[in-house]
């Protein structure tokens, strides 16, 4: 489980069917070396094709047998970025083999799978990191301000997390009698634009797909667990969400430990609704002041003739999230510490998401379990 000889951790990429930001992020740290891509042999062709393409890009082998790859390549870390419904199963198999795990979001599509993963991680003693954005410069700045007491005792937090991306044709565009596109087919097709965060067979709304990020911010900044939620959810923008009855817009009232209140607005609001990736803001109120934080800053505005319409005009700079996440992970392994978003926190966030979805359906406040 340790990298005693080289100081480096040998990493297996255990399925990489999205655009690969998690294993790329892992590889951003010099102590983590991608040595093999692996997946189960019985996966469909499109999965194998994407795994092979990633392996070719990094010039490492692709092995269609997970257990064999983990053993044969002397792996210490598994990087799981499969379809969402396979996340937990693959992570559990790695943890049971005594291998540390870095896993893509969401933790799972089901709470029972999250529970199974949490139990396995805690029993095996491996380190687990849910991929997150907590080390973005704006988040680090906000946390420092709070820890220094600049706003007194925090009592409320609000996060806007709008992704200005499209997810296929707009709601209302499917003609009567026209067949519904399957969720998986839609996600596979969305791979070219990078809008395939919900890849898998099981339809997922934005709360499940992206909720880990803003809820991770709240946990990172305040360390308070959500106890009760009230939510409104709807498919407002995209036909595929309406067809599969999963939200692309949600608002959540959060009631937390320490008497802290909060709200979350989350949505895949369409590419037309923001010139960049989306308006992502954090508002924190304290007894002696408040913070208004733009998650995108620092950024540089770049405009030029014939600039492609889809290109972001504002480019984020000073981004060190990937390196810092993996440094946190390395330290957790070296010092037997915890990671910035471990399996227990991941499970808590999944519970909040599940409660919000239930509240959206029932119209009633729901306790987080």
């Amino acid at each position, binding site marked *: 489980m340790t990298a005693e000889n080289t100081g480096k951790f040998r990493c297996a990429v255990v399925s990489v069917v999205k655009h690969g930001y998690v294993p790329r992020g892992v590889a951003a740290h010099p102590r983590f070396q991608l040595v093999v891509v692996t997946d189960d042999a019985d996966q469909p062709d499109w999965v194998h094709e994407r795994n092979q393409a990633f392996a070719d890009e990094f010039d490492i082998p692709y092995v269609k047998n997970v257990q064999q790859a983990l053993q044969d390549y002397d792996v210490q870390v598994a990087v799981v970025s499969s379809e969402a419904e396979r996340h937990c199963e693959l992570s559990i198999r790695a943890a049971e083999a005594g291998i540390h795990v870095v896993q893509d979001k969401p933790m799972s599509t089901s709470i029972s799978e999250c529970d199974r993963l949490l139990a396995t991680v805690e029993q095996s003693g491996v380190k687990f990191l849910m991929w997150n954005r907590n080390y973005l410069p704006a988040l680090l700045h906000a946390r420092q301000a709070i820890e220094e007491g600049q706003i007194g005792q925090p009592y*409320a937090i609000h996060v806007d997390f709008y992704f200005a991306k499209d997810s296929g044709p*707009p709601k209302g565009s499917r003609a009567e009698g026209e067949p519904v596109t399957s969720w998986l087919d839609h996600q596979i097709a969305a791979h070219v634009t990078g809008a395939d965060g919900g890849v898998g067979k099981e339809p997922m709304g934005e709360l499940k797909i992206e909720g880990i990020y803003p809820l991770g911010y709240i946990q990172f900044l305040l360390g308070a667990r959500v106890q009760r939620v009230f939510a409104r959810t*709807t498919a407002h923008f995209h036909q595929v969400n309406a067809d599969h009855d999963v939200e692309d817009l949600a608002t959540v009232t959060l009631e937390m430990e320490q008497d802290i209140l909060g709200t979350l607005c989350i949505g895949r609001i369409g590419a037309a609704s923001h010139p960049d990736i989306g308006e992502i803001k954090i508002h924190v109120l304290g007894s002696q002041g408040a913070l208004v934080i733009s998650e995108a800053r620092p950024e540089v505005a770049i405009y030029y003739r014939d600039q492609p319409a889809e290109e972001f005009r504002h480019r984020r700079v000073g981004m060190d999230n990937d390196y810092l996440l993996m440094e946190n992970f390395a330290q957790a392994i070296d010092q037997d510490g915890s990671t910035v978003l471990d399996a227990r926190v991941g499970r808590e966030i999944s519970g909040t998401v599940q409660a919000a979805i239930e509240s959206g359906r029932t119209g009633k406040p729901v306790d987080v379990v």
Partner: protein
Amino acid sequence: MVRLALVGDGERVEQLISLVPRIEDAEVTVCAASVDQLLADERTTFDAAILLATAGAGDCEQLASAGKHLLLPISSQLSTEAIQALGDQCQQQGVCLMAGGTDRLVPALQATWQSLAAGELGEPGLVRLHRWSTAESPGVAVTDDLLRDLDLVLNVCQALPTDVYAVARSVLGAAEPDYLQVHLGFDSGAMALIDRSSTLPPGDGYFSFSVIGSSGAAYADDHLNKQLVFRGEHPVAVGTGSDDLAAVADIQEFCHAIQQQRAALVSAADWLAAAKIVATVSESIASGSAVSIAGGRPS
């Protein structure tokens, strides 16, 4: 020419007198400290009264009975019954009643309304509003500003909500809550979140208003409209200030409504709709549960 009476005292009267020359076809013919004082002198000539401070129902009824048009600040100090009665009376008397100081005509929001009206944003899906102020007058300010906030939300959604969930806290120890969150759901699927705080240290407040529509979005945020002033250590962020423009626009709209014999932009019905939601907010806070009400378009 609309002849205006200003009712109030202090600097605010002077400020408004200085703004009136910017209003088309309007002049101030009289100033009085109170409605009683205004009506005591039968020789005074005016068509419309601008009440600068919250007025009692009796004062408003007197003015309406005298056939005077009324612009008064939206306030929670009139009950829903009083607002309804006043609205009915004004209608019967054929006088215009406008609720002022609502932020409808704040420049950033005027741009938002224009975009909404032009269909650029599509069908509204979410209204997100933050309004934070200082701790100078906790309690009352939270409720009063909530009326203003709800008016803005209802104006976007053009409907009453069907579901209301609210939570409140007394952060600084006052008897009345100085922090409040309101969560609204509408029949159309649209939703709104308002958070209102009066706990900031002395100084400027903060206002942010976003509308996310099916085909576009508007972000009116103080955060985006600050300039930097360097005086050593960290720079200070300073607002660019256009408060007078909203006050001018309020009076101009009032005068236009009178001249065109139409309902003003923020009518008694709008005020009543917001006031009813305030009552539901209080019910939700007291019960700790979501409250369902008859939604739909305001009558």
